[in-house]
């Protein structure tokens, strides 16, 4: 299946990536090429095969609901692009 220019723009939006108009065609071609590689999967029938999400077929481990981390807000916010009074700053969301 080939990926259209319109699909490229839709996927880019979903992925929060900005793709310039002159890049769209190139993306469409590359993604189509990769998707046709991926579609080699269709040469094999997998009916009834149980999907494998993970190398270890085990249930997720549970732990006691106890505090294991200490508050290190200042250290973590020390590497943030913009903070103020312990808050991360982003452009205004609500008018």
């Amino acid at each position, binding site marked *: 299946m080939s990926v259209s220019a319109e699909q490229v723009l839709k996927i880019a939006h979903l992925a929060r*990536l900005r793709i310039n108009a002159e890049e769209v065609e190139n993306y469409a071609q590359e993604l189509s090429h990769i998707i046709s590689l991926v579609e080699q999967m269709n040469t094999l029938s997998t009916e009834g095969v149980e999907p494998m999400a993970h190398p*270890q077929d085990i249930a*997720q481990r549970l732990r006691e609901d106890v505090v294991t981390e200490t508050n290190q807000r200042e250290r*973590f916010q020390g590497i943030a692009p913009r903070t103020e009074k312990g808050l991360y700053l982003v452009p205004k969301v609500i008018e």
Partner: protein
Amino acid sequence: MHELSVSQLALGLDKGEFSSVELTQHFVNRIREYKDLNAFITEMGERALAQASYADQLIKENRHGALTGIPLAHKDIFCARGVRTSCGSKTLDNFIAPYDATVVRKLDEAGCVVLGRTNMDEFAMGSSNESSYYGAVQNPWDAERVPGGSSGGSAAAVAARLTPLATGTDTGGSVRQPAALCGITGLKPTYGRVSRYGMVAFASSLDQAGVLGKSAADCAGLLHAMAGYDARDSTSVNRSVPDYTRLLNRPLAGTVVGVPEEYFGTGLDAGVKEVVGNAIEWFAQQDCEIRYIHLPNAQLAIPAYYVIAPAECCSNLARFDGVRYGHRCDAPKDLHDLYERSRSEGFGDEVKRRIMIGTYVLSAGYYDAYYLKAQQIRRLISNDFRRAFASVDVILGPTTPEAAFMIGEKTDDPVTMYLSDIYTISVNLAGLPAISVPCGSVSSPGCGDHRLPIGMQLTGDYFAEDKLLNFAHQYQQETAWHKECPPGF
């Protein structure tokens, strides 16, 4: 000093033949001397010498372990507190990690000296180290060729004798493929053997930390120090870690080496085929039984991987939003603009491509056709291995279809680049351990009598790292391929 094995270095330190400060200075000098390789993103000479001086103190007081005072290099993907952890990306060029990865902490506690942070493909996505924001790495065997990837800086640094040991990570071959192309030994452990805590995530069900060294014996000691259960990684397996070094010398006679027919078909370079054939012959001479086996779904590993890995990558990389850390664009006009521009400016082409594929295969209406189908094929690939290991001890084949390729040769065609991991990827899908071992060389086309190294891959059953290291060590006791140093180093 740079030609000595890790156990020889430890003995030298123990006997006082040289100090860790002298040893460290030697490697710091070599890293500077061979800066053109571009194997390091960050050199940490000053900090390393301070660590070495502390290690010397421990040795003097007889409070040291097997790796105390031994220098190593970390792939720039393991968070280290106070150290820039770039992951080869512009996005994290300004990221000073606020905590230590478990691997980093364990090796610090073992007394290792960290020489620096090695170059890598951006977010470990690549097979040539060309996708790094910090530029391509040269292969020490031929400066015009790639070292492989994504742990290309680690492999080049070990091959050029700029460090005795290095850490790496392997999601689809990123330890084994560069080890093969640089003529060194590299092991990817069983999924869950080494903690992923603090290792920047690419594809979480495939990522595993690994080790690179000149020999299997060197790798054995490093793996022993890194492996083990970690409550902070929910997929870490609670299982005791054997003393790999003590298990290196078991005889191979009577063991069964499986050779998959599918790994020797079209696409394999004739020179590589011959060299790996010689290695099979060597094992036969040790009274191993050579059994030809089938991995019938092997050819679908790459298609399935390029659904699963990008799907997990696009989820993991959603965290880079320009808000909490990493690159942020200038003067965003609204929140959407902040996300889009920060991410588009911060990520390179290959990373964007994989995020796009991942988003596409997971988008509404496509889940069953791509993701579910890929997971079913993953099961079939895993079952093939399960069947094989019912009757063989290890599986032997080439690590890569060809020797190191030219810088720039495959950058215009992602699919061709992806095919360079054809023999390594299925191991990650199944979560098995595998090691790449130097087993010969081929002449480099157009370079006269210039030779390029070739690696064979030994794959084992779950948690059979001891067996892989044992097989590789026995081979290295009788052969000298792993001792070959690139000319000029």
